């Protein structure tokens, strides 16, 4: 019934949204989810609610489930090496069991 797949999680500032989405596009990844939030890391605290004078610094989390783990790793590597050296952000991978595996196979 279920089949193993890889979930790539990317936590970055909203500022990087276009970057992340361009990377996914380039990797032919057609599906992802995104959740607004906040957090704390080496670049200080990002509030999750209440008046933020600078909206673009808010935290978003991308969750991207793909059948092909190698592809997820490639996206993660590119993002980290090209964009996360100075910008806040973290990335991790997990193994999940998906239903309807065809929904996660790209092209």
């Amino acid at each position, binding site marked *: 019934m279920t089949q193993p797949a890889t979930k790539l999680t990317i936590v970055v500032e909203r500022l990087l949204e276009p970057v992340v989405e361009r990377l996914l596009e380039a990797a032919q990844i057609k599906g992802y989810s995104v959740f607004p939030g906040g957090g704390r890391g080496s670049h200080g605290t990002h509030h999750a*609610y209440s008046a933020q004078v600078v909206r673009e610094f808010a935290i978003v989390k991308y969750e991207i489930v793909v059948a092909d783990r190698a592809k997820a790793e490639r996206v993660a590597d590119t993002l980290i090496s090209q964009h996360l050296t*100075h910008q806040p952000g973290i990335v991790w991978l997990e193994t999940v069991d998906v239903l309807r595996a065809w929904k996660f196979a790209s092209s």
Partner: protein
Amino acid sequence: MDLLADLLPAFLRQLQQPTLAFLLGGMLLAALGSRLEIPDAVYKFIVIVLLLKIGLGAGIAIREAELATLLLPAFLSAVLGAGIVLIGRITLVRLPSVKAEDGMATAGLFGAVSASTLAAAMVMLEQDGLAFEAWVPALYPFMDIPALVTAIVLAQWHRQRTGAAADRLRLGTIIAESLRGSALSALALGLVLGLVARPDAVFASFYEPLFRGLLSILMLVMGMEAYARLAELRRVAHVFAAYALIAPFVHGLLGFGLGYVAHVLTGFSPGGVVLLAIMAASSSDISGPPTLRAAIPMANPAAYVGASTSVGTPVALLSIPLYLALAELVFPR
């Protein structure tokens, strides 16, 4: 001495103006640990309405203005914006404890303009009965964009000189990106609609009457935010705090001086001179930070956002009475 004796009571009186009183109130609440929260959506809505109002008002005014009278103030605004960043480059950035990129980004924000400070100044001038050409607030982008562009270009040169690989940003891209930010977008939209549409009725029935009230709530947010970010500022070099404390006065007086030149040459109004001074004194709080964050990623936002939001903006707001008093001395009514 005499000047100070004149200024002090005027200053204390101005602190009672609701605009500044709400700012101080917000700081006080934050300092006392209040859990009052203005929702983000409300904050954004207020800023958009205020900037639409400023733009609409300016646009309606420009319809009747002689375009030639705008040229000199617009040019001086650009000079101020870029000039302030250059001054920062040869002072702040030279200091030993300051990382070059942090210094340039900070100078960029202080060259740029704070929409909320501008709005506050407009209300306080009206309260004081000091008239200004209604298109003056439209000088905002003429000062804001040159400042940000200068800071970004300086940072790029610096990277190249220090041998770091920097992806060159083109000038056009930086300017376009600035204009696409929410603050300048709202202002520009208001301007265009004020110019080509006939929004006078909705301006008079909605934007104008809500301006003061929404500003009072915005000041509350700015005050709470300023206090909340002080903690962040404490973690970076003290020179940033010192710069943020002193620079607004230097920049404001520079602005006042150049405005005075325009007054003499083209009859720029006293109120216009004051607004120019305050725009120069102010530091960007909404649109500048994301632009700089994207273009100078090596700079530490705790330094520049902290310096601008925690110290620069309140100092600029609290110094508005200073320029009002100065105008009273320089332009006797």
